[in-house]
């Protein structure tokens, strides 16, 4: 039974899909919101256990007649996605109750979205990439508009939808041209192609444009700040971590397997895009007064650092990118989680940096957590964000992209300003009006503490995870691990 074997290797996605359908039906039979949430968590916990097992023990191979890959990067991507979703659902449940928009349809949508992300991160064929990307995007369009009775919420959904659907057109054209040039949609068969016709280059460039849209690299980032500000905060965390992880893991797979022939041209393109993304993301983030919008621009800047690793294009670069994705997911979900906690105690527009004044002393735990996540985002040792940046830049130096690294390090140093500014407001400013913060739920603060501890752990002892990732790529990436 080959199909049974394939299904066993694809179990995380299958569990999440079945879980989504079960939760959807429970909503149909008017189950209590709390029960729906618990069922969702049950299925996600099961998927997380199996994804962890797969991460450590799954064999490298292809499933479903070459449609999907198993093991190595695919297992890693699946793990981050399921892990991110697990924490997002915990935070989302509490946040949506706080802002009084806890619709039962949110949970099945989050599950279906996760299925799309897993399919995208494990894809071994452009058809699977397309379907995974669309499943993810269509669920996210709807999730962006959860706050549907406020103009801000539906507007962000509309913007996201129009630009997302537009980029889908380009993505599809890219696939069509590559299919015409190489006669196949399979990644490794496309990789075997070495006859650079015009149509091949057309396909490659269209494909890259669409991916830049989805991961919001400059100059295709226009939708990001608006959508991230208008969406519910925890969903923003989900969009900026899990969906970017899935898209970038798919991009790594495509670059590594399908486009080795175009590697040189892609390196120079990626380098230019990376410079623009880092510079613009960091400079515009400095002038933002809205914390959520600042984090949106900061996430653009982080895509810039990731692109530096992709530009290096070596095994070392891909290793650094995957590690960075893990670190980035931990710290970004955490940071948005604390922002969501502050926000739900007030109204949706409580994100101005002024209103953070003195909050660090109100609930000391939350203040400390936000500081840890922000310091990690700024890349301050010994946190995971620092190791991520170090690995990415080291890989770029190895690949000889010195200019890129210099600009990246400068941009990264400048970014410390706006992260530390939030902390200054938290601890060193007097609040003008008295603010009362509710005590956070135990599970809420506990999950944030877990994220913070993991951020610290991967920052101090990164060797285990980097060795694991480096073993995915044949190169000897162990030498430079600190």
């Amino acid at each position: 039974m080959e199909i049974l074997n394939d299904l066993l290797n694809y179990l995380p996605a299958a569990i999440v899909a079945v879980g989504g359908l079960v939760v959807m039906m429970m909503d149909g039979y008017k189950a209590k919101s709390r029960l729906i949430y618990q069922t969702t968590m049950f299925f996600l916990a099961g998927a997380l256990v199996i994804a962890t097992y797969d991460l450590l023990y799954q064999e490298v191979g292809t499933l479903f007649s070459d449609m999907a890959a198993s093991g190595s990067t695919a297992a890693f991507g699946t793990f981050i996605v399921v892990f991110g979703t697990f924490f997002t659902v915990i935070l989302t449940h509490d946040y949506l109750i706080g802002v009084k928009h806890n619709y039962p349809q949110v949970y099945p949508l989050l599950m279906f979205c996760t299925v799309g992300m897993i399919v995208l991160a494990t894809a071994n064929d452009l058809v699977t990439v397309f379907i995974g990307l669309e499943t993810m995007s269509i669920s996210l369009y709807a999730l962006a508009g959860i706050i549907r009775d406020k103009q801000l919420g539906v507007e962000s959904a509309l913007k996201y939808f129009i630009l997302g659907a537009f980029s889908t057109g380009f993505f599809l054209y890219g696939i069509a041209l590559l299919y015409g040039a190489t006669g196949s949609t399979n990644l490794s068969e496309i990789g075997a192609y070495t006859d650079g016709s015009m149509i091949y280059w057309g396909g490659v460039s269209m494909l890259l444009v669409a991916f830049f849209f989805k991961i919001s690299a400059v100059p295709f980032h226009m939708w990001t700040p608006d959508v991230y500000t208008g969406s519910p905060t925890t969903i923003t965390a989900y969009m900026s971590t899990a969906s970017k992880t899935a898209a970038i893991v798919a991009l790594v797979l495509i670059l590594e397997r399908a486009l080795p022939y175009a590697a040189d041209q892609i390196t120079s393109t990626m380098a230019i895009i990376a410079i623009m993304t880092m510079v613009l993301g960091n400079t515009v983030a400095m002038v933002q007064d809205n914390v959520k919008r600042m984090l949106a621009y900061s996430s653009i800047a982080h895509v810039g650092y990731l692109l530096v690793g992709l530009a290096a294009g070596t095994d070392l670069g891909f290793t650094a990118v995957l590690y960075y994705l893990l670190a980035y997911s931990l710290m970004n979900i955490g940071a948005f989680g604390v922002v969501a906690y502050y926000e739900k105690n007030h109204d949706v527009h409580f994100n101005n940096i002024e209103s953070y004044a003195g909050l660090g002393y109100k609930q000391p735990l939350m203040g400390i957590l936000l500081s840890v996540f922000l310091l990690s985002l700024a890349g301050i040792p010994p946190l995971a964000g620092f190791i991520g940046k170090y690995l990415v830049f080291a890989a770029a130096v190895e690949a000889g992209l010195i200019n890129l690294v210099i600009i990246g390090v400068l941009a990264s140093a400048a970014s410390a300003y706006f992260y530390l500014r939030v902390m200054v407001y938290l601890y060193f400013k007097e609040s003008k009006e008295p603010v009362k913060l509710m005590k956070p739920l135990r599970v809420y603060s506990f999950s944030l503490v877990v994220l913070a501890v993991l951020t610290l752990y991967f920052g101090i002892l990164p060797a285990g995870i980097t060795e694991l990732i480096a073993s995915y790529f044949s190169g000897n990436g162990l030498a430079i691990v600190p």
Partner: protein
Amino acid sequence: MIGIEWYLGVSAVLFIIGVIGVLTRGNAIIIFMCVELMLSAVNITLVAFSSFMGDVHGMILVFFVLCVAAAEACVGLAIIIAIFRNNITADINKINLLRW
């Protein structure tokens, strides 16, 4: 006998008409229709390649694109209805609460 270039050319022209429509029109519904136009233009390219190469995979991708187009229309129109509940306009130039 019509060569494959002609099919590809017509498809490229239709795709660009869709792109121009998305970039210049203000009405959200028309923009959605232009996106559908882009997708169906790409479908012509895929079917042409598939048919001339004698390989069925391209046509199967077209089948999936049809499903995606239907799903996008479903969610997109729901978003428009939600916009109308709050805003009473489909003109995207008037929807500008969010700026950088």
